[in-house]
């Protein structure tokens, strides 16, 4: 914002986009990914991803045929992989919204190279996440009963239930994310329409670009809508995961009933989201030779966000431990003891390793600027964040208040099938996206090229 703009070193930073680029080269480079020949690696990866997607389809079919009993859930552990994965995917989605909306409002220009990609990731992650709450119910075909639709039964949903808040939060989030992503795509879709070499592509991109002609009026409307949507999305970044955390925090289950959950969930979500963006972007840079569009500075900035949010998450863990002890409540104290030394102790300790210990490597600039190291660390965080949800969901439930009802939760092959299947689903969508849509916002990148800065006296002078 103002302060940032006023920051003197703003132009001393490494450029967001490499200097050889101008508007034309940026356009070409991004659109060539779409118009060029399908790379072999893409075909191979797509085949693998699509096969895993098939596993998801089979898992869903079997689930609908037999019931949730094919999973490892039971009483006491009524929620298992489905909710773990739901929270994990929703969390991953957060990076996209944060990058698109908050960083836009904060005028962080570096976001431009990665925002489209991150938004797509958000959308697909939310699609994966959205599957779970529906499928995990005993009777998914009645899932619409959770929506406040006027009906002949004269029944409203129970507005006291955090699950209902969740329905609102997630559906709103999915809608706004989709709109935001699509709105941002329109000018680039028009570019693709204009560059299209065959009629089919021209027609499809033409319909999708909604008659964009790039007139000043169009640009004016576009900017207003985009800004509005960014404004709408901003609170969502905070609200969605806050509401998701209410599913747990509003209950009385020891290990769930915790006031720190909302901020710690939001931080965790951003943490997980940036890790996933890095996980996807790092291999794509060399593959599409876009290192000069998504530069080391992007990587480093994302690493810094991860470091900060990671520390917030670590603080959350520490507070959970402290408050559990400080509360003096028998069930809370036992819950902590059980997490750390109970039958699921390897999960908790792995969580600490992956989510707290390993990310400390980001303090070193050497690691922040090394794609290999960053990739490894972001993978560690992906795993760690999943483990965190496992710890919260399964280890809290499996030994709660009544000792007689303690039991173990062991996921079945169908739990794994659906989980890995959604990763296949996600990758399939990502691969289709990078192949057929501009994964980098072309028109915004044009504004970042050195040539676009002509109006600025200093830059102007340097250019001469």
């Amino acid at each position, binding site marked *: 914002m103002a302060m940032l703009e006023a920051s003197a070193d703003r132009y001393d930073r490494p450029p967001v986009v490499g200097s050889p680029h101008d508007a034309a080269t940026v356009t070409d480079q991004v659109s060539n990914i779409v118009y060029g020949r399908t790379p072999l690696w893409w075909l191979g990866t797509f085949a693998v991803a699509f096969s895993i997607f098939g596993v998801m389809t089979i898992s869903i079919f079997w689930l609908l045929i037999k019931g949730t009993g094919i999973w490892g859930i039971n009483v006491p552990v009524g929620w298992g992989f489905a909710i773990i994965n739901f929270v994990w995917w929703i969390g991953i989605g957060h990076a996209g919204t944060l990058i698109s909306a908050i960083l836009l409002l904060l005028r962080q220009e570096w976001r431009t190279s990665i925002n489209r990609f991150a938004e797509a990731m958000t959308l697909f992650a939310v699609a994966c996440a959205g599957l779970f709450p529906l499928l995990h119910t005993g009777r998914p075909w009645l899932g619409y009963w959770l929506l406040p639709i006027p009906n002949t039964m004269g029944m409203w949903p129970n507005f006291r239930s955090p699950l209902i808040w969740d329905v609102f939060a997630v559906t709103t989030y999915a809608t706004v994310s989709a709109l935001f992503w699509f709105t941002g795509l329109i000018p680039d879709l028009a570019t693709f329409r204009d560059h299209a070499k065959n009629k089919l592509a021209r027609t499809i991109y033409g319909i999708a670009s909604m008659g964009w002609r790039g007139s000043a009026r169009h640009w004016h409307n576009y900017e207003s809508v985009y800004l509005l949507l960014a404004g709408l999305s901003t609170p969502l970044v905070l609200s969605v995961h806050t509401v998701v955390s209410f599913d747990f925090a509003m209950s009385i289950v020891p290990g769930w009933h915790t006031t720190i959950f909302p901020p710690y969930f939001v931080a965790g979500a951003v943490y997980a989201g940036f890790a996933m963006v890095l996980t996807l972007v790092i291999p794509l840079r060399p593959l599409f030779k876009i290192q000069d569009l998504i530069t080391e500075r992007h990587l480093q900035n994302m690493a810094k966000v991860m470091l900060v949010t990671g520390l917030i998450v670590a603080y959350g863990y520490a507070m959970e431990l402290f408050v559990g002890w400080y509360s003096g409540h028998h069930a809370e104290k036992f819950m902590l003891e059980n997490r750390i030394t109970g039958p699921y102790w390897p999960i908790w300790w792995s969580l600490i390793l992956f989510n707290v210990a390993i990310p400390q490597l980001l303090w070193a600039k050497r690691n922040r600027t090394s794609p290999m190291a960053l990739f490894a660390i972001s993978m560690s965080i992906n795993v760690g964040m999943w483990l965190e949800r496992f710890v919260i969901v399964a280890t809290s439930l499996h030994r709660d208040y009544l*000792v007689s009802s303690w039991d173990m939760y062991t996921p079945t092959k169908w739990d794994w099938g659906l989980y890995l299947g959604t990763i296949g689903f996600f990758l399939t969508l990502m691969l289709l996206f990078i192949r057929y849509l501009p994964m980098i916002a072309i028109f915004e990148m044009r504004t970042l090229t050195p040539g676009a800065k002509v109006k600025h006296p200093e830059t102007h002078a340097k250019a001469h």
Partner: protein
Amino acid sequence: MGSPHMGSPEMGWNEQQESPREAGAPGLDLAQVREKLAAAEGPEYWRSIEELADTPEFRDMVHREFPRQASEWPEGVSRRGFLELSAASLALAGLTACTRQPEEKIVPYVRQPEELVPGRPLFYATSMELAGDSLGVLVESHMGRPTKVEGNPEHPASLGATDVFAQASILGLYDPDRSQSVTHLERIATWGDFSTALLGRIQALKALQGEGLRILTQTVLSPTLAAQIEDVLARLPKARWHQWEAAGAHSARAAARAAFGADAAIRYDFAKADVVVALDADFLTSGPGWVRHARAFAGRRKAAWKKGEAKMNRLYAVESSPTVTSTQADHRLALPPQGVAAFAASLAAAVGVPGAAAGDLGAFAQAASWVAAVAEDLKAHRGASIVIAGDCAPPELHVLAHALNEALGNAGATVLYTEPVEARAEDQIASIRGLTEDMRAGKVDTLLILGGNPVYDAPADLGFAEALLKVPFRAHLSMHRDETTAWCPWHLPASHFLEAWSDTRCFDGTAAVVQPLIEPLYPSAKSAHEVMALLGATTDATGYELVRGHWQRTVLAGAGAGFEAAWRKAVHDGVAGVGAAASKAVPVAADAVARACAAARESGGGMALLFRPDPGLYDGRFANNGWLQEVPRPLTKLTWDNALLLSPREAEKLGLATESIAEVAAGGKKLALPVWVLPGHAEGCATVHLGWGRSRAGKVGSGVGVDVYPLRTSAALWQAGGVTITKGSGEHTLASAQTHQDIELQTREATKRHLVRHGTVEQFEKNPHFVGEMGHHTPAADETMYPPHAYNGYSWGLAIDLSSCVGCNACVVACQSENNIPVVGKEQVAGAREMHWIRIDRYFQGDLDDPAVHMQPVMCMHCELAPCEVVCPVAATVHGPEGLNEMVYNRCVGTRYCSNNCPYKVRRFNFLLYSDFETEVLRMAKNPDVTIRSRGVMEKCTYCVQRINLARIDAKREGRKIKDGEVVTACQQACPAEAIVFGDLNDAGSEVNSWKASELNYGLLDDLNTRPRTTYLAKLSNPNPALGGGAAHSSGHEGDH
């Protein structure tokens, strides 16, 4: 035993047969089997012919973790598949559902108008027999279809309560695997065929005065059946009648003869007993009249808090294998069998029984101090104490108990002796041995086996099945085509007790009519009376005529011209109305005590293997009953399996752990069994339960568990000495309803959380508020965000007295029957998905070697501030206007959030399609007043809302309020110990309010501010100060407050 040892090459049906057939195992190469046997060195035990042949099918079965029928879901050929097939076959058999009223007049119980009102159940009184004991019941009938068994309040053995077996008998009636026709050589035949064949035989035997005719029954209580058999024996004097009851009162009979020189039935009056000493006795869940005993005993446990009644009693339990009874004991001493015997002898000596010589208690340090203290306590309560030996205890313990009761003046006061209740008391071991020897010697020409399953459960050393093959004509009457059927050319389908007329006597000698509620589901089923009638003078007599005729001649002979009214009343009431048998004085023979003490001294050391009837399957007869397979065994919480029970120390010594495989060798035979480590089990012995490993039980019970009968010999029916237990290879998953993981941690946490609150009478008298002080902080009434609910009408609540509950499981099965709760199978139980709405939580407390055990029935608490209600997104679980936490199945989408948020974990989810919607015959067992839940829906205890509504309709019609005690929940009704009370909390005078007013009343986890409507009365014990105040029961109140 699964199959006998077949040495004989004449392994066929009999000489009359056209084609010799292999018994029970089509597709086996018997030549190959014989070859293997010949090649084997030394005595080798094998479980079945299949095993011997080592067929791929058998190997497949062994390799399968779960027996085929137990592994129901979700993959492969499911039980559902089987059931579909059987449903189809039923349809083909022409069975259309419902209402087959008996042709004779049966008399409804007067709780309703004479005529049948659609939607209103009728109740009929009848009696259920089980192994030499009978229980009077009222059976609920919906439009001619029996659906639920309740106790008969007018029957002395029941007083309105029931047990698990009676509750589960409904499912037995509708068992789809029941035999449906007479078969001869596995081909369908008719009763006419059988009758012709039998009478031809009898005709020939008449010339020989019946020489060669044998009848084998279980223990016969029916006066009519006994008279029928005696009649045949009178006409064919050389014919003989044998009895065999695998889990019968063999020791008690032997002891009565040894002590009194005569047979006698024993009747205890626990209501009058201040001090009870149980010697290996599980009198609170087994033995003749146990339901009544449990009630009387519990009455004296309640005395501590129900003011104005007698004082609380005191129970000492000395035993080897932990019993449910010992969970109620104020002092419990675990000793190996020889230790229990020595203790009994020493106690007799200490009390001053003439001829008693103290046993050797040198090895049992604790026992010596016990003898003195218990003897003092008994002597202080002369005439008001009971020493009782269990059915599974050796005869010498019974003799010593008789002598002790006599010396203490209990005989004639708290312990009464009467003439035997069974029709013919005899040494059944000798009886079955005699029969087997005669069969082997070729002296038996015609054998009628009326009920029972001797091929499976006869003592292993007799070689019953092998001898059976030498009998030319053998017929077996049974409800299932079981192991014995496989060895008999003639199979006769038996009727269920709810389908046929009969009569019986209960523990105190009271006679009762067994009236049918329904025509036999399969028209060819007949009762033993009808089979015996084939041999009688008039072959066309029906069961009704036979029983009625007999009663006219004997039981109700005194009624004279008023017989018709007296009969009608007897059928209506379910009891004869002629009272219990008169007691008689039976002095204990002087030398009997000395002999018993000598026997006690001689009882060997070494590892002993104890055989006990299974708490669910009994002797194996209930193996095909899913409810009983799945009811968690009271102490182990095991379902769908039996195991070798070992004490923690013994298991450690042997290098065994729960679920590892142990090899048990006794008498040259060897069995592999999974181990279950049971805290509180005595060292130096191990326990196995009978009734498992049936090879031909049916789709539910075949191949479940391990058959231990092969180790059980006629000389050692209840305990075998000199057993070796070694570590076997592999593991076997056991499905326990309560996790066995980290038992010590569980014990610690349960204590900290004050789940089961307990204390001593002394503590209670000193500080009546001790229970309330025990818990964590209970929030005040205004500590809630939500406005309080207003209850202008009724406000239902329930209380459970933990001092009374023995954990017998009657409530669990009663609830299952009342509320159409499905059976889920072993795999699902192992995955923590059992569906019981009420469960009995078992907690150990104290030292694992000698823990106190607490039973706590837990069902929905119907919380005033229910955590489940808030979180349900679709309002499928809501607070009702009368305080019930109501579950709306149709609205439930199955998020399971309610279950997660339920601190009591009483909610049950239909993870798969558990309810059986297809099997036609099982539909008839369902309660029409309760919805059958489908897949994906949450369910839980409703406080039997259907019963509340029924009472409400009655009350409204009569323009009054529902009276206290008018609504009785299924669990409450079944409970022998009267541990549960239900009623209106808005009614100041209600029983439930008087219970809740007790200082002992507490809410489970009440610090969570859920405000449960189900509350508990803390468990009180009455330890003897001389024994250190009952170490196990009084400790454990530490923990944070």
